[in-house]
């Protein structure tokens, strides 16, 4: 997957929900990503900000968990991870590298204040056929992709990313000597402007930074997408199966809904609190096995499982559940400490 900044400055929403700009579906864990997991916002000065939309499993940049709703400005080589790494996997499913894309597009198109930074010494700007350029860039990305495929662990990935990036640049350079020349000119320009202040690597870094400002591109590469498609389908089927089993196991035999405030009886049969209370008013025996009811205990674990499953369901189902909960709660009255406790538990669990 590759997202480019392009001419269009658009806010991009990424997630598994239906109304996002870039839909990402996990093949390993259906609820890995939230519906609107994160947002990529192009900034006025040519950067991208990434914002975690209070996602369940979080957004990580270089392994650091981002604070929800606080924008983080991505810099080249940042490793962006959406969701967590599964315990039995060596890599997270959604891991991307933020790359700067070397470009021939004149910088003055991207804000007048940055104009001088990318112009050639003589003030001319290099113009190249856009289509030609983008095909070259595609080539570079393909190149990156194949290299990424070879990497296995996150650490390795981080190390190799830099190499790949350099290599990618070289490729572009080979394809079009003009760019290299242009870049070199910029470097010379810098060197003249501030002799002795920066050493070579600092110089290069600044160049990278400037190129970045001129034309920034987010190359996101989903490592999963190159997996064997059959394996993908199998994984997907397995996940669907698990979901449907879970759904039927977590259904109340009285109301046929997923448990709402699950309560387990002494016989170990479970029902919604509303359902079993309603029934116990008539008869103090288990609807399933007819054993006399002696205890009726809330099942927190079941409640957490249900909440987790519901989060992955369509909005109308969630809405239906909220309505149902409200109607039942109105009838029964709420135990505030219990609700608060449940929220905390949910928050810390995920």
């Amino acid at each position, binding site marked *: 997957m590759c997202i480019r900044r392009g001419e269009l400055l658009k806010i991009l929403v990424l997630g598994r929900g239906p109304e996002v700009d870039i839909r990402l579906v996990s093949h390993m864990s259906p609820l890995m990503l939230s519906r609107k997991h994160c947002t990529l916002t192009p900034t006025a000065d040519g950067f991208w900000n990434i914002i975690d939309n209070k996602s369940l499993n979080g957004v990580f940049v270089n392994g650091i968990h981002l604070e929800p709703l606080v924008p983080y400005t991505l810099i080249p080589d940042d490793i962006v991870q959406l969701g967590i790494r599964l315990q039995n996997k060596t890599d997270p499913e959604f891991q991307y590298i933020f790359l700067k894309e070397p470009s021939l597009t004149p910088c003055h198109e991207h804000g007048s204040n940055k104009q001088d930074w990318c112009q050639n010494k003589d003030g001319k700007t290099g113009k190249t056929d856009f289509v030609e350029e983008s095909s070259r860039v595609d080539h570079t990305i393909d190149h990156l992709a194949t290299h990424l495929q070879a990497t296995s662990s996150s650490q390795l990935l981080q190390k190799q990313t830099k190499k790949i990036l350099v290599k990618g640049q070289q490729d572009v350079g080979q394809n079009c000597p003009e760019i290299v020349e242009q870049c070199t000119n910029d470097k010379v320009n810098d060197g003249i402007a501030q002799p002795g202040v920066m050493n070579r690597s600092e110089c290069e870094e600044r160049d990278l930074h400037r190129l970045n400002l001129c034309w920034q591109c987010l190359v996101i590469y989903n490592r999963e997408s190159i997996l064997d498609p059959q394996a993908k389908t199998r994984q997907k089927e397995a996940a669907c199966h698990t979901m449907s089993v879970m759904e039927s196991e977590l259904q109340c*035999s*009285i109301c*046929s809904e997923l448990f709402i405030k699950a309560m387990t009886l002494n016989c170990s049969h479970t029902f919604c609190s509303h*359902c079993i209370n309603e*029934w116990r008013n008539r008869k103090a025996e288990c609807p399933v096995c007819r054993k006399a009811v002696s205890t009726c205990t809330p099942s927190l674990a079941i409640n957490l499982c249900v909440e987790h499953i519901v989060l992955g369901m369509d909005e109308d189902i969630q809405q239906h559940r909220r309505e149902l909960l409200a109607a039942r709660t109105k009838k029964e009255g709420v135990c505030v400490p219990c609700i608060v406790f449940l929220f905390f538990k949910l928050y810390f669990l995920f």
Partner: protein
Amino acid sequence: MLCGATMASMQKRLQKELLALQRDPPPGMKVDEKSIQASLTQWIVDMEGASGTLYEGERFQLLFKFSSRYPFDSPEVVFIGDNIPVHPHVYSNGHICLSILTEDWSPALSVQSVCLSIVSMLSSCKDKKRPPDNALYVRTCDKNPKKTKWWYHDDNC
């Protein structure tokens, strides 16, 4: 009183039961689609007497009525139509003497389990006759069989 939560739960339950019955009906049973109202409160189930039993080749109709308190309240179930099975637990007005329809009802039971109980009740019959108190009962009973204080016949017929 009709409570929103109960209504909603009844709808979902009935929808699920109907779907299961349409998809995977017990042998010889079929929901009469035309009889189902939007509210799902009333269904007719067509059934055939099982082969190898006294009712082989006969066709019956069962009417299910669900109150707003279903499944906490049992459904009202009666035979309707021209052919009421002649059986020691079935009155000639269609009322059925079956404990799971009243005293022994549980909300974990379903239309399907009620149908299966009725089929097995008919299948186990060895002598086609009306209940001994048929004439009196039919003359004096309420239209709703659930209002009857049943004195359950023993199952040795």
